[in-house]
């Protein structure tokens, strides 16, 4: 049972008290693109890919609570362009080489790029100098591909209770760092930890399993990202 309703692009959406706009949209089968959000994690509002207009003001749908009578604009040309710009900026500010990345086909950033019709970024590549931390026996961090979404930071702190990862520096210099001198191998991270499992891109990888799933059977090879949410909106069979 819903507590109230609000509208997304003019469609009435039921919601419960405490639900965010993104959660209510998911339940209603409306896919709002997102990157830093993950189920069971406290929303971070870092990536801004889920930006919507709430009563005309830009807000991140993953952090903003749904409210009775709220008017949300989501699938507009302007918002689609904003989101695509964000995704393009994420591509150019790291070193994302999809052609040989083992996350290809399972990568949420790549999948969003495809879904949004990104062919090539309009911004110049920044080619930052980043490092690879492979000191852990079972998990590696390739900072070249990190988009600073903070899923690992929140998962390690809130779900694993370990604080293996944390943000360092400020503003556009902000990066995810390992909370130990000597690299990941000096932490108590386990490959089974949520922090090692929730990376949306190819930055945190379980070692020695790359490319095990053949091309054609990977998560986003067949259906675009968000399809599983939109499937909930399929019209009910007649007679029910």
């Amino acid at each position: 049972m819903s507590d109230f309703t609000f509208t997304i692009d003019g469609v009435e959406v039921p919601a419960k008290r405490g639900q965010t706009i993104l959660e209510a949209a998911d339940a209603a089968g409306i896919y709002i693109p997102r990157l830093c959000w993950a189920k069971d994690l406290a929303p971070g509002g870092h990536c801004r890919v889920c930006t919507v207009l709430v009563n005309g003001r830009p807000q991140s749908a993953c952090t903003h609570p749904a409210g009775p009578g709220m008017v949300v604009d989501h699938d507009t040309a302007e918002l689609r362009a904003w989101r695509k710009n964000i995704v393009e900026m994420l591509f150019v500010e790291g070193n994302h080489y999809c052609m040989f990345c083992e996350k290809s086909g399972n990568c949420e950033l790549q999948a969003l790029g495809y879904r949004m019709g990104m062919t090539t970024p309009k911004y110049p590549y920044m080619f930052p100098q980043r490092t690879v931390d492979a000191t852990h026996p079972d998990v590696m961090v390739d900072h070249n591909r990190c988009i600073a979404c903070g899923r690992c930071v929140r998962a390690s702190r809130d779900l694993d209770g370990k604080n293996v990862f944390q943000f360092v520096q400020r503003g556009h210099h902000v990066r995810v760092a390992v909370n130990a001198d000597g690299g990941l191998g000096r932490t108590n991270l386990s490959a089974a930890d949520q922090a090692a499992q929730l990376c949306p891109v190819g930055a945190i990888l379980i070692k020695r399993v790359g490319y095990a799933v053949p091309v054609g059977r990977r998560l986003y090879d067949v259906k675009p990202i968000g399809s599983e949410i939109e499937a909930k909106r399929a019209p009910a069979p007649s007679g029910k």
Partner: protein
Amino acid sequence: MTMTTTTELKRIIIEPVTRVEGHGKVSLLLDAQNKVKQARLHIVEFRGFERFVQGRPYWETPVLVQRLCGICPVSHHLCAAKAMDMVIGVDADQLTPVGEKMRRLMHYGQTLQSHALHFFHLASPDLLFGFDADPQIRNVLGVAAKFPDLAVRAVLLRRYGQEVIKFTAGKKIHGTGAVPGGINKNLSVAERDELKKELPKILEWSVGGLELCKKFTREHLAELADFGSFPSNHLSIVRKDGAMDLYDGNLRAIDSEGKRIIDGVAPKDYLSVIREEVRPWSYMKFPFLKDLGPEKGWYRVGPLARLNTCDFIDTPLAEKERQEFTALTKGKPNNITMAYHWARLIEMLHAVEKIQLLLDDPDLQADNLTAQGTFRGEGVGILEAPRGTLFHHYRVDKNDQVTMANLIVSTTNNNEPMNLAVRKVAEQFFDGRAVTEGLLNRIEVAIRAYDPCLSCATHAMGQMPLVVEAFDEAGRVVSRAVKS
């Protein structure tokens, strides 16, 4: 092969060489009497994959290094996977049957598509229209206009090879099928049946292409026998019983008379027999057999070398063709540069026969895709790529990161022979006065016989206009010709 002093010489430059994979430049240096004193195939671009791969996790390597090339990426993909098998402690005979056979199927698909591409699209215009024919018609479109049936078959042969690759690697270009220790998919029954359906036609067309090439070679034997030809050593891997094996085996090298120089050398021991020389005017190195030194130890690789080094071919149609091929030189090694084409089409037929055998093998539907071993940290993979013997050597540290990579690609192995072929042709056909279209064409034809993949050896580039410039000793252009 080259002069040490270059004073009083004129220089002719052919750049780029067309209808080869990649971008090459030829310079001819002439003396005061306008005789060719020096011939060089310059490779002036640089790739750097051996450096890119350092620091990357070892399981990424087969997918990363195949980006060297869009023509035969499968060769690099499989060669790196073979090296990584060794890195994780899985020997060649420890792969699961489905693991090895799926890789072989991928490799034979690759050989088929690459050889078909080279013969029909790149080489056949020279053979069908003649070396001196107008470049406007002496190209693949000219072949399509005058020999439409042949052109359609060429496209479909290549397409079939690409389909085999797609079903084994997941994609037609730059797939991910081979992983350290095995493969990531088997061949479904539906995929198998789809490939089997078209196979009889593919076999028939492969035989037809070979007949065409044989007919041309026999009809022009007097002209071709000396065309850019020279005695040389030949190197390839062969199976332990001496059979041609494009996927796995030990190194064998023979001299121009057929005497064995090395034999039974395991891939991991390649450095005990092979060395590479660097020359300042090319980014492509010059490999040689260590014991013979750079002057005498250079060798040829590729289809011609493989036909020469093997004792037999283990498929019936190709073996019959091999016997006919070796009869031409009375059982001695064939040193005719233009015989590369004939040898290449025998291999194409062999690849089709191998595909046929594999498609009937129920092992390809098995599920035990990978084998496990104990980490060794170093591995060497060698296989016979379409253009010749390919070496991949890696060291991996305890963190699973690649610390060293050494790649000796097929075209690099043929570096000295290609230089020599250019010089032979230039000596034969340069009249000492004008740089003729015929001379340029013939130099290109000689280089093209090796099917050089210069993108693989160094850099990727499409076709570009051909520019020829002759310089006097002061560096002034005395003659210039452009082919666009």
